[in-house]
């Protein structure tokens, strides 16, 4: 079950001025507050934040909306960003990396597959990509594909799960649902 929040609509309801841009900390805090209310009211474990109708996002607002949301949501809540353009992804990536946070993100149409923004390593990126290519699996299944030892694969998958970038249950890992 997935909750989709269209940030363009949240912005329209939040701002007293007409703007498509996610700018400033007060705006970010108000938008995050709406998101948190929606998450608290839903039984869905995964929330998709849809940036499609958003213009610019500055660093302060990215911190308020995405970084603080990730820090404040429960360990069994998952967040995925949808419809990001390159500049939005760049701002969010920068803000999260500085705080040792990470999030799964899907670019706007035509921009490629799901990727990790924020704190990451080459191993995490490879394991994340492999899991998305294979679908659900465990370390035994992924290790040959990656050409890694079982221990290295298990370590990468475990770290992805700790960052809530993949679903984990009884040693099996799966990409976060996107629809």
């Amino acid at each position, binding site marked *: 079950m997935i909750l989709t929040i269209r940030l363009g609509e949240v912005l329209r309801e939040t701002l007293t001025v007409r703007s498509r841009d996610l700018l400033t*900390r007060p705006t970010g805090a108000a938008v995050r507050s709406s998101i948190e209310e929606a998450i608290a009211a839903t039984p869905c474990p995964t929330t998709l934040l849809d940036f499609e109708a958003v213009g610019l996002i500055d660093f302060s607002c990215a*911190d308020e909306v995405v970084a603080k949301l990730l820090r404040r949501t429960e360990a069994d809540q998952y967040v995925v960003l949808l419809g990001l353009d390159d500049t939005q992804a760049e701002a969010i990536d920068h803000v999260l990396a500085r705080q040792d946070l990470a999030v799964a993100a899907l670019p706007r149409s035509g921009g490629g597959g799901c990727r990790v923004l924020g704190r990451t390593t080459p191993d995490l990126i490879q394991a994340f990509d492999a899991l998305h290519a294979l679908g659900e699996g465990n370390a035994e299944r992924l290790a040959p594909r990656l050409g890694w030892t079982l221990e290295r694969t298990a370590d990468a998958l475990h770290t992805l799960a700790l960052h809530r970038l993949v679903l984990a249950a009884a040693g099996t890992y799966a990409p976060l649902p996107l629809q």
Partner: protein
Amino acid sequence: MRVVTVPHYLDDKALDAVAGGLGPWPPEERVLFDARATRWASPYGFTALLTAAQALRELGLEAPRLAVPEDDEVRSYWGKAGFFRHARELFELHGRVPRRPPAEASDVLLPVTPVRASEDVHAVVGGIQEHAARILTSELGLETAATMRFSMALSEACQNVVEHAGTGGWVAVHSFNWRVRLGRRVVVIAVSDAGVGFRQSLEAAEARKHGDRWGDATALEAALIHNVSRFRDPGRGQGLAAIKRYLDMWKGKISIRSGTARLAIVPAWDDDTPLEDGLPYFPGAQVQIVIPEQEREKREQGTGEGEGQGRGGRGNR
């Protein structure tokens, strides 16, 4: 009456002369800013002049007088830059001031605009993007994503006022050919406020660490070099860090003056002194961001003069 002569060319460096003219702060006498002979002002000059008047008014002092430039062309440009619209509320103006709101000059990307609240930042950024896109990519030769990055930098610079100053401020953005100091076209963002300044803003969080060294210069170093914020939140201090990141990409320059110090991150094309301390006091904080044209070879498209501020003004930019 304390008479402060506004220099012929009012830019970031010349502001020191204005600050020196004000004497010990706050001035005991009513102030007259004499700009009759002024030929040119940068966006930094415009916003700082308004800041001086705002600071005096917020102290409950009598409205300072401003003798406006005598040159018709200069006066007209000051009107187009949006200066008089706000100066009317802060100064007692002397001299002929354009009555009608003039059309904006072509090199004014953003006329002098007040920044008091988050909504003002939205308005500033929303209003500049289309105009900035043309200037940044066509004239300065920046990458296509530069418009968004520029808008983000502008947003962060304005937010410093909303978040830290404790009072309102001013922002202006111009594009012009900076012949003497660079020989290329530039876009300049100036943000100035009459607030508490960096030292007071960071004092509670930082002063103890620095002991006797604590002052305006160390406060600027903490904020600009070490990305320190007065808030403990780990996500704070991102704004100036982000601006520096983009300026590094564009070989741009940022300088911040607060109280009696000025700190700049100086690119290779400039010979500015990175840190100056012991300057004459000026209230609040003044930020200047300079983004230069990216190609050294002059391009036909990028070398057109902006509208002038007087017959002798352009040569000294």
